[in-house]
């Protein structure tokens, strides 16, 4: 082939691509601009329309206003969300005497807008992202009839969908569903422990039941994460198991159990926590110090004072902070500040600076 012809062909091709790019740019730019305009004015319109419904003088006028709002939503999930937000605002507005009226009006709006049907339709017919979003919205609405479908999604191979379905199950408080998801997650090397924490903190069912299923069926690493995630909920039913876990050879298990035992703040765990404050692992020692902080007993104070001399900076600092939160005498603090251990004194000094405004009245 003639080179000159090839070059000209290439130039023509480039010009065609450029023309196509320009057209594309123009079309999407106009489309985006329209979208921006639509949503920037939508919020104001929705406020007026929803307020109009609540202030309607007659039932007939209200029906008309609701129908107009429904038409405005036009199957747009973003607009639907804006409407929900405005309705939530009304749900929290005004005094008790309006409550009955508001409930009636809200149920009228719901009957007309049919949000559950709206999201159920997305759940059935949408792509993976629509389905994911719909799972969460249906759970927010408490639409229990879709729980089986959502459970099915949580077992699927699409990570985004199964994650969102699991979050929805958590909102529903479905212990078995969430537990099944977490047990399957054990084989997923990507997800961070934070997801377990979030699932458990969003869980609205019996955490005791959820913990029971998970402790019976999980591998040790997942079990340790679940124990850590359950710490704020102080599940007494598992106290014995946690105490046993302090003797485990698995570091993660010891860390989780020391946090769980410490959270109870019970005097009966004092001895176990004092032993843990001398553990080989510094994270376990930090957990023990935090647990001892809640006890305020002379022995606990003595152990925390000793921990300010720990070889690990983080333990020293945690112990110094803990000590200032315990009912210790000025003498105890002075002992450390004037003591031979400079590192312990530094840690306590730094903690003091964070709690006391040293400028006093000289500001």
């Amino acid at each position, binding site marked *: 082939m003639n080179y*000159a012809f090839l070059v000209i062909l290439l130039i023509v091709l480039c010009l065609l691509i450029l023309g196509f790019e320009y057209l594309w740019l*123009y079309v999407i730019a106009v489309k985006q601009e329209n979208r921006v305009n639509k949503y920037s004015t939508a919020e104001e319109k929705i406020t007026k329309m929803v307020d109009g419904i609540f202030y309607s003088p007659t039932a007939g006028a209200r029906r008309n206003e609701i129908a107009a709002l429904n038409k405005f939503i036009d199957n747009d999930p973003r607009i639907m969300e804006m409407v929900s937000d405005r309705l939530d605002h009304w749900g929290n507005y005004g005094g008790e005497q309006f409550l009955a009226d508001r409930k009636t009006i809200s149920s009228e709006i719901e009957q007309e807008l049919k949000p559950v049907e709206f999201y159920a339709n997305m759940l059935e017919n949408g792509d993976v*992202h629509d389905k994911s979003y719909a799972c969460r919205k249906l759970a927010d609405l408490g639409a229990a009839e879709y729980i089986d479908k959502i459970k099915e999604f949580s077992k699927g191979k699409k990570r985004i969908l199964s994650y969102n379905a699991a979050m929805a199950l958590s909102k529903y408080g479905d212990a078995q569903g969430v537990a099944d998801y977490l047990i399957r997650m054990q084989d997923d090397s990507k*997800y961070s422990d*934070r997801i377990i924490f979030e699932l458990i903190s969003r869980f609205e069912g019996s955490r005791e039941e959820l913990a029971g299923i998970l402790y019976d069926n999980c591998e040790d690493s997942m079990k340790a994460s679940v124990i850590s995630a359950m710490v704020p909920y102080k599940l007494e039913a598992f106290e014995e198991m946690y105490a046993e876990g302090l003797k485990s050879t698995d570091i993660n298990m010891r860390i989780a159990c020391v946090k769980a035992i410490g959270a109870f703040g019970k005097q009966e765990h004092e001895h176990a926590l004092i032993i843990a404050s001398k553990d080989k692992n510094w994270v376990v020692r930090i957990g023990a110090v935090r647990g001892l902080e809640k006890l305020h007993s002379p022995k606990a104070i003595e152990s925390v004072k000793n921990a300010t001399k720990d070889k690990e900076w983080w333990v*020293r600092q945690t112990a110094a902070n803990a000590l200032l939160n315990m009912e210790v005498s000025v003498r105890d603090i002075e002992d450390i500040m004037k003591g031979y251990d400079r590192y312990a004194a530094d840690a306590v000094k730094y903690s003091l600076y964070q709690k006391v*405004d040293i400028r006093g009245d000289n500001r």
Partner: protein
Amino acid sequence: MTIVREIIRFFNYFCMAFTILLSLIYILQMIMSFVKIKRDTSALRSDDSMEYMDSKNLLPISLLIPAHNEQEHIVQNIRSLMKMNYPQFEIIVINDGSTDKTHDVIIEAFGLYQIEFSTKISIPTNAVKGIYYNIEYPNLLYIDKESGGKSDALNAGINVSSYPLFACLDADSRLEKDALLKLSASFIKDKNTIVAGGIVRIANGSVIRDGVWESFSIPEKLIERFQIVEYYRSFLSGRVSWGLSNSMLIVSGAFGVFKKDAVIEVGGYETNTVGEDMEIVVRLHEYMKSHKRKYKIIFCEDSVCWTQGPMSMSDIRVQRRRWQVGLMDTLLSHITMLFNPFYGAVGLLAVPYNWIFEFIGALVEVIGYFIIPFSLIMGELNMFFFIAYFLLAALLGIILSIGSLILEQYTNKSAMTAKQYLNISIYAILENFGYRQLITLFRVEGILKYRKLRSTWGKIKRKEFNE
């Protein structure tokens, strides 16, 4: 004489082939980026990162702001960061031996006072003169230290920080309110993530109030308009595509979030370089690969940091020379990674690409600027081919620039009106005739003055944010 003529002829064709090949690689990157951006944009519909806003389960972040002579911007930046949407974060400002009033303005604005501080020295740094705090601003710490450069300042910040993640930020940039929330989700959804970089957008012409973008008007100066297009191309096409193969070699010094453990493990930021943002990322690649660890270095185009682009050609010159020196520093200090299959895509693609096209490429291009017209005058080059090459190179460049504007449309859906996009597209064409060549000249100057330029902070005068 014939040999000289042959060499010149060979070099002519080499330059032409090189430029066309580079443009084709860029276009391939753009296509890959388009696929990824389209996928990510769809995923935003199901994204729940905003639901983590009040969650205690997000990893807390230390925001490190190294500052050297930043008296004009620093206080406003700290105030803007205090309003970030993030459940738990601390701001650590590190004054690296400023000679202006940076120290005084920070102390005065926040009523800080010196405290005795207990620090775990994980990375050695120059002497810290004092640490300042105010109980009324519990999440703000200010470190005053002896000058040691940006890397040293960052290392000092890492030593003082208390959280498992840290973000390095520029003192004269602004983060979008939700930027941290979006970026930190990467660490949750893939626990192997060790670094996540956000996109840096040019703020010239934009009004940004409290970390929220409000409006845009085309900036006054030509140079600002060119930079807008240039940043789109660099971030949306380049970084997105490298991020896809986990072989991104640079996370902007203006905005990146790092796992602190990993950075301490590799010894912190290298102080003997001006390209610390690239060097740390390359070193992390090298370390993780040689220790056979699973890791991810990702780019998140949805997490935005705004920066004011330089307003004068002399400031652009300072900036680009510095970037080139940083690139050279990193490539030379990690030369063993070049074409080394042990490092996978990093050793076989990203490092060679940077050597050939970003480093040597600038030299080839500039030599070509002189030799090709010279050959034309000497009659060594066919006029038809010269014009054809010139047209083809320019057209490919324009395709790339307009393509990056399309990518921008998909990521930032509300920035400009259709009219503004079409207006900016004119500069996407014009930048190929003069501006890009000038930038290449600055890069070559950076290569030639490599030794001299290695040890400066490289201050650039920037415009105030339009707030």
